[in-house]
């Protein structure tokens, strides 16, 4: 199995091998469960990251925010999380303790309770230091109706802030690479933004995704495919920190393929787009949100990106580590 990097390969794995055995209608960050009168968003995610600690965050913090964000992407207020830790024998107690603390703090910040969990210790080298799985539930806001099938021509794509911080931070941390001083992971809960967004624009809100592995390019390609539409992005509207852009240039990477842990993409009808944007921008940390593109009709379900000069590029899903191709 070589499906780790997100994007096309993992999509193929999920759809080809897993979905046929599961009761899944639409592949989203969170699933919905109806409990009497209440609609609940339900999700689980596993976290493996090397190194465990990196500028701006750690695996414990990711494990909380990742699940909180998946719930938020279902238009739901995160309520409770349970967790499983798989610990490699020999891991120092201080390291473990630091991660538990990080989980606790992230949960407090995100206003969600960790209500239970399980711990397994496995033999040395049967795991890499620490794996964390979290599962969570949230209360779906009755005003939202999210589905790729509602996405139509003219809808606007809103991005919550600069992209690529997390993925580049991890890449540098892994190699102990001190190329660019000021990059740190963007890990955070996005629920405060989503909550305000729902208040301001619920009827126009159609689809959300947090662009983690595979980056924005993969999330939007999945949208284009699921909604049977095409997407035109305005390259200049997509914010990238100069340090991240510099790192991408020297590494031959496209920021659109880099993972994020504290950003989300929302598709909002044209009518509600400005209200939605303002609502996000008014939450501290959301100032750089922007409308980055628009949905159009085409029999090719693709993602394009237009720049003022440089023309229009086709943005493909990430296939793994991009190979050199310039002759």
């Amino acid at each position, binding site marked *: 199995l070589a499906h780790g990097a997100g994007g096309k390969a993992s999509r193929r794995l999920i759809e080809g091998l897993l979905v046929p055995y599961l009761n899944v209608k639409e592949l989203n960050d969170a699933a919905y469960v109806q409990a009497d009168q209440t609609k609940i968003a339900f999700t689980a995610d596993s976290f493996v990251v090397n190194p465990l600690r990196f500028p701006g965050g750690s695996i414990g913090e990711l494990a909380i925010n990742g699940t909180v964000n998946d719930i938020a992407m279902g238009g739901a207020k995160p309520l409770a999380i349970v967790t499983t830790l798989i610990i490699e024998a020999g891991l120092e107690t201080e390291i473990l303790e630091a991660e538990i603390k990080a989980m606790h703090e992230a949960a407090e910040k995100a206003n969600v309770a960790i209500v239970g969990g399980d711990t397994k210790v496995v033999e040395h080298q049967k795991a890499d230091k620490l794996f964390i799985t979290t599962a969570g539930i949230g209360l779906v806001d009755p005003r939202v109706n999210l589905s790729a099938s509602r996405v139509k021509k003219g809808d606007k794509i809103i991005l919550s802030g600069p992209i690529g911080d997390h993925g580049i931070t991890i890449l540098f941390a892994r190699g102990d690479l001190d190329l660019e001083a000021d990059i740190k992971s963007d890990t955070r809960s996005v629920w405060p933004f989503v909550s305000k967004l729902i208040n301001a624009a619920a009827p126009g809100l159609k689809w959300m995704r947090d662009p983690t592995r595979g980056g924005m390019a993969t999330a939007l390609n999945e949208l284009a495919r699921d909604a049977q539409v095409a997407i035109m992005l305005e390259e200049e509207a997509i914010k990238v920190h100069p340090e991240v852009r510099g790192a991408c240039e020297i590494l031959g990477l496209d920021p659109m393929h880099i993972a994020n842990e504290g950003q989300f993409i929302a598709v909002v009808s044209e009518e509600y787009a400005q209200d939605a944007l303002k609502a996000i921008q008014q939450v501290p940390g959301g100032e750089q949100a922007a409308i980055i593109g628009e949905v159009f009709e085409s029999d090719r379900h693709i993602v394009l990106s237009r720049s003022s000069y*440089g023309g229009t590029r086709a943005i493909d899903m990430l*296939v793994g580590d991009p*190979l050199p191709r310039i*002759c």
Partner: protein
Amino acid sequence: MTTPYRTMTIFTFLPDTAICDDCLKELFDPESKRYLYPYIGCPNCGPRYALMKNVPFERQNTTMADWEMCPSCKEEYENPQNRRYHAELNCCPQCGPNYYLFENGQRVEGEEMFRRVAELLNAGETLLVKNNGGYHLVCDAFNGKAVQVMRNKLGRPRKAFAIMVKDLEAAKEIVHLSEKEEEILLSKRRPILLAKSKNEELSSIVAPNNTDIGLMVPYTGLQHLLFHFGAPRYIVMTSANYPGEPTIHKDDQLTGLMEDFQCAALIGEREIERSVDDTVLKVTKLGAVPFRRSRGYNNLLDIALPSSRPILTVGADLKSTITLVKDQKVVMSHHLGDMTKYGTQLKFERTVKDYLAIHGVDLSETIIGYDLHPEYFTTKFAQTLEGCQHVAVQHHKAHLASILAVKNKLSERVVGIVFDGAGFGEDGEIWGGEIFVGSVQEGFTRHGHLRKASLIGGDAAATYPLQALAGFIGDFDKDLFERLQLPDPFPKALKIKEKNIRTFPTTSVGRLYDAVAALLGFHLDNSFEGEAAIALEYLASQSKVEEVYTFPWTGEELDYRPLFEEMIQSKLKDQSPSVIARGFHRSLAQAVVDVIQSLCEEYDTNYAVLSGGVFHNSLLVSDIFDLLEGSKIEILYDDEVPLGDNCISLGQAAILSATIIE
């Protein structure tokens, strides 16, 4: 090499050719009914491919279908005695399309139009002009300010612009022309010729850091009329597109550029069916080789490739062409461009569709060939085609096979040297300095290669020559770096290499060129493909051979380490960069010759083949020929075959034809 279309046995596209002498005479004859009429033409001249919607070439299959001939034109068309008998595009000012200048919402026509155009150009304005195969952006080539505006607006800081000159006499004033070059400049195909500049002022404006200037002479009635009415004798004539995008050829695509440039447009009423760029070629010892094989070259090749089924091949990704083989006949498309651009992808897909439909090829019977690179757009596209068989072909083997196909030497055993930027290798690594032995029929064996270097940051190494350099000398002694004082991204790249992040092994000679250019002072980014290599050739051309460096062939690899060590020592002794650059070219040529001589002897052949973009370098090629003088080894080459990736689809087709047995 080309077959005149009259003798063709299958219906196919016809090449676009320049206005003929008879038509040109009539154009300026006040007695002629087509006096000063831009759309003058005859059965012997004019556009074809760019206007064809279908085959055969008959009026109803072209964009002229909707224009009805007046009685006088019809008379010419039907009279076997008239030289316009069956001139499919026949028309005159009475019945045909015409040109108008669209300026600030106003339409200006007739002679006034031409005078206004000349006025605008002389005043330093930029203009959009519709030619046979698409729009061009035009301005006075000696007007540095006008050209700079064009550079800024197109995001093209340093890449050379082609110019159009009034006539041969004007050409001779700015470039050196051999007899062969004169002939090519005036040939019916009328390409852009890269010729050695003798005008520094002009070079510094249109082609900085470049030995050559790319120029062409008028090939349409309209272009002759521009000069006739007083346009500057030297005008920039560059295809109207943003870098990598297809050239604009429909009038309704004009608004964006007109707004960006705040300029007027000279619009022709005759529609263009598909954009066809100008061909760019250069004469070296390897022939009159097209860099970009396009206008004038859309013809059936004069070769046969045996195959019981049709073959469709889709080439590479940045300079793609497609090739179709049907009934052993071979049609190769024009240059399609950079497949990362969406517009180019559409153009490519349309070309595939056109070629299949127009030649009546059934996809389900067809063998599909594509590059081994899994991430090329063309590869992924080819894999979705419902052909009867899909075959991936290694990039550099396709390079070699293209030349052997046109030389009709599919079974000949040769020593093949392919030097280019990058191609996907059979071991999954990035190749680009490859040495093969074998034939198209029996297959090529990789016998050796440039010693592996590091491609740091993947494609980023192709953008930043300093980064390429770190990939070659990164393992050298650290205090050497301190003495060399190389700026960023060199030290950054060293760190990335050290941590082995996004660092690929490569044998690319393209990157070797970049690395040497960086060592000798080229610290910019490559703002266009080959910029550093072209600058290095320019630098080298200013010196004689004073130093030659050690660049040994071990029998398995060309070891660049002593080469760099000696060049660095020379640089630290303050030797002039120009002498070192010249020495590098000679050393590489010597290495190539050493390989050829030893392998030709070992494998008992007298034939060698050179391909890959690196061999566009005329200094390198002439050094190789000089060093081989007196030997019985023959280097095979041909005017029809590009050395760059425009050749890949043809090479793929040759390999499929020779190796697929049912």
